[in-house]
């Protein structure tokens, strides 16, 4: 009786129009990977569907800017080709993320970096039709300013620090996943993270969120 039209997939977790909801929750990764390896290539759609939001966020956070979709497409493709080498029992997400990160790095050459920062900032200031209507516009504007400041501060961090903050917080991964995705020992993740946070704080125009915001221009 459900009028699920011709939603092409059978995935019950499908949420039209929603980004990232789930991050793969609801997908039995191991089972899907086994099916793909057994030759059922179209089963890969489930993984793509489940992780697209996360991958796009990662590409955007790592500076892919307008290329994010292409980067993600390419990453999924590469992950597919490499699936034969995927280690059973490990998590798909950090693995995919490391591919996304590589791909982003390949796509966004250093020359393009500054541009990508602007693109990211523009993306943040772009009106977002779904959510902001409900928010107090003054508060929203302040948030945007603060976010732009955060982004540019992030950008001034060294590579390692920027990566660890991005993975751990922007992509909301736990320490274990971060360690896997970056290929670092957990201890390294921990120490770099705390140093990165301290640095970041110093780079920000003011201490923390509850500011009036007069100087968000960084």
């Amino acid at each position, binding site marked *: *009786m*459900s*009028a*699920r*039209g*011709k*939603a*092409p*997939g059978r995935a019950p977790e499908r*949420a*039209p*129009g*929603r*980004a*990232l909801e789930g991050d793969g929750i609801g997908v039995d990764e191991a089972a899907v990977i086994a099916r793909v390896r057994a*030759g*059922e*290539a179209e089963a*890969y*759609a489930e993984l*793509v*569907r*489940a992780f*697209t*939001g996360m991958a*796009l*966020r990662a590409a955007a*956070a790592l500076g892919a800017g*307008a290329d994010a*979709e*292409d*980067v993600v*497409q*390419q990453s*999924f*493709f590469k992950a*597919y*080709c490499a*699936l*034969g080498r995927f280690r059973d029992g490990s998590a798909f997400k950090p693995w995919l993320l490391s591919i996304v990160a590589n791909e982003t790095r390949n796509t966004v050459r250093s020359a393009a970096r500054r541009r990508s920062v602007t693109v990211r900032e523009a*993306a943040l200031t772009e009106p977002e*039709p779904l959510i902001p*209507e*409900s928010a107090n516009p003054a508060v929203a504007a302040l*948030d945007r300013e*603060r*976010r732009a400041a*955060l982004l540019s501060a992030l950008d001034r961090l060294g590579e390692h620090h920027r990566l660890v*903050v991005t993975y751990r*917080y*922007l992509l*909301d991964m736990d320490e274990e996943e971060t360690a896997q995705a970056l290929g670092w020992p957990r201890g390294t993740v*921990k120490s770099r*993270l*705390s140093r990165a*946070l301290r640095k*970041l*704080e110093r780079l920000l125009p003011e*201490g923390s*969120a509850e500011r009036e915001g007069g100087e968000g221009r960084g």
Partner: protein
Amino acid sequence: MAEPERERPGGELPDELRALGRALDRPESGETMVERVLAQIAAEGALVRRPGPRDRLRESARRLRRALRARRRALAASVCGLLAVLALTPPVRAAVVDWFDFGGVEVRYDPSPPPRSGGPPGCSGPSVSLARAARDAGLRPVVPRALGAPDGVTVTRAPRDRSLITLCWRAEGGGTVRLDEFPAPLDPGFSKLIKGDPEWVDLGGGAPALWFARPHRLEFWLREASGERWFRTVRAAGPTLLWTDGRLTLRLEGVPSKRRAMEVAKSAGPDGNAPRSAGVPEVKCDGGAEGPRPPVTGGRTCASEGARRGD
């Protein structure tokens, strides 16, 4: 799990950073990406390398192509559709209870309070003759006999190099009656799945039609001034009748009475007959769903081309 004491140096920074991450998200259901990735896999004949009998590979490639075709069919209508009728709960995103496609129109609905509609906008821009519209759009506009000669005719470029023809009439009360026409496939075997609002109506002649009695949100494509990319635009739409005639999808707005709207639709068929059923849709390779950017590799999804050429 997180260890808060480790996060001490940042104070509230971690939360802010998480919010920043969320702010980078864009609405994306994943379907577009699925389409792109599967197309690339199929195009490059890539298969996960695992020792196995050859025919298993061949079988798998075949299945993939079949899945892709089905998906194309679905996406050609939904993602690349010219118009999407939305009745999403404003202002906060609510669970969209369901969705379906109708001749290139994506419909999602849920029981939310409808927006207020001030009636459809008229034909903006210079009006052209019907013959000129036919030439420009590459399709012959259907003119419902019940409405007579239109007061305005415009042709709008749409993604995938398609065209949208709009006919406008001034209604008695000073309002506008607007008829949008565009080519789009209609997915067969789909009609029985829907119930409730909107309502299926029968125009005779086998062509299904949908009546949206309540005002709703209408989302459609516009090209930004620089011509660089398309973006979705939203406006409130009043009661609307949606139907197909051959390979055209028609969308009538500004006629608030269902009966009258059906009369108009019926009078649009050839020689005053009911509109023809679309039958099996023609799914051309124009159904890619991505934006105007071309895909990275040889996974040539035709979509990008149309979008890029479109003026």
